[in-house]
């Protein structure tokens, strides 16, 4: 194989490549959903798959999310590995019963005899000017559902690696794709994709000593910017990209917080009942005596996602993160 230059690729392209490679490697992988075939998906993530693998492997389904996930369950029962696309976060809700009552439970129900290796791709989050119902952060629902893995990439390389891992997993994985990162680019060699990322490992994206920003998906980039800006204030922030919400990488996260003694959880999802509560609580349980200040949360407000023209006020940005860092009781230290 000739060496190919490392070229910038978008996250959407890396996802497409992951699907393609998974389908090529394993004939039991089937992609299904609304508009995933001829159109290639509304975000073009499934572009070209129907052409390359045929409509039986990449199928435009009728418009019914419970039907999509429910038939995927049956297909998985018969040995296939369905990769389901939910067109937008809020349009996964009609499939909620199938997800919670069957997808998450079938393995347990049958004492491991009937695992369901289903990947459920859900474009999620805001920041793209979407009208109502197109910008939900629904990860709290999935985290509260035992039996599911919940994974979300923040980099182009992870998009590839984690999606391959999700498809290879013998358990159902909710794969949350940050919409506003679809067109983010990175130098990533599509002809030498990274290895499959194991699910369940957080990554320290930026080492730092003052405090830990614990974040994932769409907010990782914001935290990186905040960490950059924080240098001017004399703070050296560590940024931890969780990557996998379930299982949760307590080890990496707690190691970081024990090192820094301070932490802020950052996510777009609403604060109340959102992922940050779990993260803050478990970090505090495990690192209490290392903490100089309570773990704070910077999150979306507790509202239905705002209309496009107001979303910038809702989304956690650099300033709000720095404000939280400032509240980490630095006086108490000196």
């Amino acid at each position, binding site marked *: 194989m000739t060496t190919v230059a490392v070229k910038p690729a978008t996250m959407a392209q890396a996802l497409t490549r992951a699907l393609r490679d998974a389908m090529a490697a394993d004939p039991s992988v089937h992609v299904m959903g609304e508009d995933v075939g001829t159109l290639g998906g509304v975000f073009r993530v499934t572009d070209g798959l129907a052409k390359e693998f045929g409509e039986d492997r990449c199928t435009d389904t009728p418009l019914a999310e*419970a039907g999509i996930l429910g038939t995927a369950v049956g297909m998985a029962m018969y040995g296939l590995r369905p990769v389901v696309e939910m067109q937008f976060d809020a349009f996964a809700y009609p499939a909620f019963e199938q997800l919670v009552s069957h997808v998450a439970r079938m393995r347990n129900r049958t004492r491991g005899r009937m695992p369901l290796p289903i990947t459920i791709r859900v474009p999620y989050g805001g920041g793209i000017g979407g009208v109502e119902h197109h910008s939900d952060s629904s990860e709290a629902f999935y985290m509260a559902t035992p039996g599911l893995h919940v994974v979300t990439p923040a980099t182009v390389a992870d998009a590839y690696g984690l999606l391959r891992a999700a498809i290879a997993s013998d358990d159902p994985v909710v794969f949350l794709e940050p919409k506003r990162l679809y067109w983010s680019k990175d130098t990533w060699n599509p002809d030498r994709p990274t290895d499959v990322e194991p699910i369940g490992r957080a990554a320290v994206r930026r080492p730092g000593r003052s405090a830990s920003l614990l974040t994932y998906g769409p907010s990782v980039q914001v935290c990186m910017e905040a960490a950059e800006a924080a240098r001017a204030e004399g703070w050296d922030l560590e940024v931890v990209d969780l990557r996998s919400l379930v299982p949760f990488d307590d080890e990496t996260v707690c190691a970081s917080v024990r090192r820094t003694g301070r932490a802020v959880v950052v996510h777009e999802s609403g*604060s109340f009942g959102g992922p940050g509560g779990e993260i803050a609580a478990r970090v505090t349980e495990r690192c209490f005596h290392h903490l100089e200040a309570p773990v704070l949360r910077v999150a979306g407000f507790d509202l239905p996602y705002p209309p496009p023209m107001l979303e910038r006020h809702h989304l956690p940005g650099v300033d709000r993160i720095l404000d939280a860092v400032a509240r980490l009781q630095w006086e108490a230290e000196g």
Partner: protein
Amino acid sequence: MTVMEQRGAYKPAPPPAWQPRTDPEPLLPDAEPYRVLGTEAAAKADPELLRRLYAQLVRGRRYNTQATALTKQGRLAVYPSSTGQEACEVAAALALEDRDWLFPSYRDTLAVVARGVDPVEALTLLRGDWHTGYDPYEHRVAPLSTPLATQLPHAVGLAHAARLKGDDVVALALVGDGGTSEGDFHEALNFAAVWQAPVVFLVQNNGFAISVPLAKQTAAPSLAHKAVGYGMPGRLVDGNDAAAVHEVLSDAVRRARTGGGPTLVEAVTYRIDAHTNADDATRYRGDAEVQAWRDHDPIQLLERELTGRGLLDEAAVQAARDDAEAMAADLRERMNRDPELDPMDLFAHVYAEPTPQLREQRALLRAELEAEQEGGHR
């Protein structure tokens, strides 16, 4: 009695619970979509009504082109055009009385406007300054519903409530061909039939759900054939024939109002434009198909009928066009002004009273905004 003694005692009988129920025959749709324009039936149509429909169609088409233009100018986040479907949109609005309710789907801004809602307020959702821009109670128009088919049970519930209160109010709910695949479609129609609620369901079968053609959506002889499975009549109509759609809907509304229960109407039409301005329809359909439908244009169909019968002169046509242009100019002008936004509104309507938690968050945002005003934050 032993089994031997029973010998010969058995007389065949249908299972006890089996009683001849509703006669299915009248619930089945005709084999072909009902048409008025260009048929005998046209002669019976009220010329005044046809002219009203015509003016509204012209206006509606112009509304679609104007709104699409506004997306190009960045004045609308997105616009799902109903070009080609104006007959359905307009007839739906005109088939209702003032006291009735309209339940639109996300594509039906035009029906909302035809019902009397201010065109700018109707576009709030798609401009993005708020979700629903109009007061649903002012013209009795429910919010444009983005989650497909979810508005159908709302329409049933509202119609049922009106009936319980003794009001002779009818609800008309719009849904697409794709939306008929959702569970909510099924549940809504079933509730409507069991409750005999005064509701009319209009399916605009425009051939596509984004890129997915009808053949991948259903294997039914027609979508109207779903009606018999709920015990309500199913009607099939040429969705580009405004007179036919109006007549079928008006009949259904009358039936509902007088206690006859719900009706399912399938209007066969076509989405001439792409799904939205952001969609590229050439990825999934050819020009020839679009052209065939352009030749069956709802405005032209009605225009030919009216002019053919001497009911519309060039002056009237021009008047309709002028009216449409004036509406478009007004829309353009008002949409080109930036909407006034107050970020604090984010907290105003989540609950009747903000929770303590929201009050905290509101204070945070207020402080941020004040800091911003005082000349830059950090």
